[in-house]
């Protein structure tokens, strides 16, 4: 893993480090330019802690004009720039390069405007996802996309990664909840895409920038739409004797026209692990456990819960509990949300994968994962956002055993390749970053990738903005693609994940 290939280090840039630092120190407050190794250390990695690299310098601009001036300077002097928000990304999107200036956006941390009339919030990019909901919830509003790390992840990072959350099926991911952004291109151009009005004139640059993983521009302002909080939310906790029964239940719920706010499945291994860890009252004898949640008005939720109950019973459910209070509903979720630490108890290390699959392929994919688990002789537990088809297998291994690590990497790559094979995607919500970069050729052919690279070149001709991410460097499908956790310690162990 440490042998990850990154773009060639430009020695001539490194040799001019002092000059670059002092030049940028004239553009912005020199106190906001860090270059001592002790100051750089906190920025050497993001949420994908398996990879570490100190940047040449860290700059912390305070205004959009400063962002523009720094980018223009770096563009003119061929200095690479890596943008960074809260640093919680799980695919290494803000991993520094040895010869880069890391642009840390932490000082863009204010909500600029709450506009209830147009039902939107204008904010700086380093405000956390949850802070937006906190700012509007007293008036009964909220911001819908809810990545599990929402307590810490920044809204700018959400835009860069097009973050999802457990409610994506009903409410969409970031791209569907975004009205506008202000962005600075690598040549220093400042522009706005979208605004408070819906859709926009001309090409949809807002949509192109969203999920571009910091390769096309640096986001300096974000306008998101806010929604009225649902009147009532209820969940059902359902056990099934087989994965197939659970899978059929998902398909039928959707076919019946019920769109749940969230629908999660865990396999037996994970149900047991999370229940042991959090005492959530899960049916540990079931082969699969499902949490299905509906929101809306009282009659609406009652009608859907009743329908879901009937469908579950028809599909041989072995147990079924409907939340009677909000506390009980949150208890249903507590175990699910503790999936990471629960696995940390079972093995010294684990990798979290992030593939997307058609909902109906769940049983088939889990059978293949079980087969691979035997082949590689490594235990695995599976969590599945059944509503939107996002599968998170957690592979357990021991990083101190090199053979075990290699096996885990091979196992993970095989799972993602299988996801693509059944019609899914390499990544549902964590992004490609450096993690799945070399697997891109599983999903795309040369022409597809070339078209994307042509867009990159059109906006950043010298390829200076976040190079080495998303697109393959090796041009071979290496065995990469996971989140690595050692001894139950993520970089931010207190942040809920996926």
């Amino acid at each position, binding site marked *: 893993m440490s042998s990850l290939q990154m773009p060639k280090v430009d020695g001539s840039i490194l040799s001019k480090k002092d000059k670059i630092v002092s030049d940028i120190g004239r553009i912005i407050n020199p106190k906001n330019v860090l270059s001592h190794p002790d100051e750089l250390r906190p920025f050497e990695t993001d949420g994908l802690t398996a990879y570490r690299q100190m940047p040449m310098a860290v700059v912390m601009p305070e205004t959009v004009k400063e962002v523009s001036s720094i980018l223009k300077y770096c563009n003119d002097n061929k200095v690479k720039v890596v943008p960074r928000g809260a640093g919680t990304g799980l695919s290494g999107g803000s991993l520094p390069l040895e010869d880069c200036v890391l642009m840390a956006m932490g000082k863009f941390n204010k909500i600029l405007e709450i506009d*209830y009339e*147009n039902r939107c919030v204008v904010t700086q990019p380093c405000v956390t996802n949850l802070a937006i909901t906190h700012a509007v919830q007293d008036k*009964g509003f909220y911001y819908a996309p809810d990545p599990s790390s929402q307590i810490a992840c920044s809204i700018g990072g959400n835009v860069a*990664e097009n973050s*999802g959350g457990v409610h994506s099926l009903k409410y*969409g*991911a970031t*791209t*569907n909840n975004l009205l506008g952004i202000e962005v600075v291109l690598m040549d220093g*151009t400042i*522009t706005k895409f979208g*605004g*408070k*009005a*819906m*859709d926009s*004139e*001309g*090409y*949809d*640059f807002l*949509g*192109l920038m*969203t*999920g*571009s993983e910091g390769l096309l521009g640096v986001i300096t302002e974000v306008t998101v739409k806010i929604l009225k909080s*649902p009147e009532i939310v209820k969940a059902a906790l359902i056990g099934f004797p087989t994965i197939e029964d659970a899978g059929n239940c998902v398909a*039928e719920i*959707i*076919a019946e*026209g019920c769109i749940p706010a969230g629908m999660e499945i865990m396999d037996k291994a994970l149900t047991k692990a999370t229940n042991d860890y959090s005492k959530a009252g899960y049916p540990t004898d079931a082969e699969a456990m499902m949490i299905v949640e509906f929101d*809306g*008005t*009282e*009659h*609406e939720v*009652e*009608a*859907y819960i009743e329908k879901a109950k009937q469908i579950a019973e028809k599909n041989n459910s072995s147990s079924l509990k409907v939340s009677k209070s909000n506390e009980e509903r949150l208890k249903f979720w507590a175990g699910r949300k503790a999936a990471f630490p629960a696995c940390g108890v079972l093995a010294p290390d684990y990798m979290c994968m992030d593939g*997307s*699959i*058609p*909902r109906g392929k769940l049983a088939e994919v889990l059978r293949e994962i079980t087969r691979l688990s035997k082949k590689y002789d490594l235990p695995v537990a599976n969590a599945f956002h059944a509503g939107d088809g*996002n599968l998170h297998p957690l592979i357990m291994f021991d990083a101190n055993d090199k053979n075990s690590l290699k096996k885990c990497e091979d196992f993970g790559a095989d799972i993602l390749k299988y996801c693509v094979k059944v019609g*899914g*995607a*390499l*990544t549902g*919500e964590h992004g*490609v970053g450096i993690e*799945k970069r070399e697997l891109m050729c599983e*999903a*795309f052919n040369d*022409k*597809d990738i*070339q*078209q*994307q690279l042509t867009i990159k070149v*059109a*906006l950043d001709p010298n390829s200076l903005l976040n190079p080495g991410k998303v697109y393959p460097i090796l041009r071979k499908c290496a065995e990469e693609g996971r989140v690595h956790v050692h001894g139950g310690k993520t970089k931010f162990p207190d942040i809920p994940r996926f």
Partner: protein
Amino acid sequence: MEEKQNFQTSLDFNQNIFKPSTREEIVEIVKNCYKKSIPLEISGLQSKNKIGRNFQAEKTLDLSNYKGIIDYKPEELYIKVKAGTSISEIEEVLKKNNQQLAFEPIDFGYLFSGESNSGSIGGVVACNFAGSRRFKVGSVRDHLLGFQGINGKGETIKSGGTVVKNVTGYDLCKILSGSFGTLTVLTEISIKVLPKPETSKTLIIKNPHVKKALDYLGQSLSSSTDPSGGVFYPDYFGKNFILNDLTHDGGLTGIRIEGPMNSVDQRINRLSKELALIDNEFSVLDSVQTEIFWNKTKNLEVFKNSKSNLTRVVVPISETLQVIQKLKKDDLNYFIDWGGSLIWMAFDHLNSKILSEIKETTKNHHGYYTLIKIEDDFKASADIFTIDPIKYKISEKIKKSFDPKRIFNPGKMYTGI
């Protein structure tokens, strides 16, 4: 003029209109045009071909024969079709499974030819005009899961897929939606489908005043009753609706509520209380009448057979009233959709003076306009779409990255693009 012997298919390159039925033929046509820098007009079912600037194209690529449903998985909530497939065929198939295209594709046929023509899925994606449910479910671009297309060099490219959650690479689905065929010839389209609501009803409020209407709409959209449509028709359009439960023929505000039966009744009831409506001030349309009312609305049927021009103005809801007040003329007929932020404006006589007023007003109020229907002699000189200089420069670069020789619909959106 063509060197036919250089190409291997049976296509006759001397013809001016190509009507391919296979992807291989489309590739061949585009490669040929790329090689010789021949501009190509991309056309579907002719329902929206009048929208956009006039431009010169030597050849036409007519995709109406490139049609058919490739794959429809109701339980996976997607349908994959060839780009020339008609919206009516898709909607027919979805209906059998009680599903729908939730973004409500607009049938521009009434406006341009006086009769229904909802066009092809390729055209709907290329124009990205969503119907009344826009503020709740998003635009066409929010429902495009993946595509396959041919870029300006004749290369087959794809992006996205059929799953709803996918963050692999740049989201090219977005940049192609609303690009009016200037970047890529779409060949295959995977689009998200959603269940039809069990029932839907419409609260019709008798009210001729736009200010009051915008208050009603604003309050409804910010309530937990979760409306899926919000429209205002001034007095002169109220007469266009003949429905049993529409008890007056003047100006009206319509608010649509959808979902399970019990819940719809509960929410309609609550909304009428929240808006403090008195009994003779409102009526409720049942699901049959609701369908008629909203189809007429999204399909712009009030402008059917009208000779007027039609301008589509989108602004933040807070600006709508001022925009209308500033642009008000004796010959203006308008109605408001999207819960208050879309204004369809028809002037009997549109000239450059009025157009520059529209341009300035929409810009000052943080919105934009598109000229949908316009007299031919004025069309040549008018800005059909607005853009600022920075975005124009970026658009030029993006155009070049997909279509380096500018062979696809050159000039349809902007000069030089």
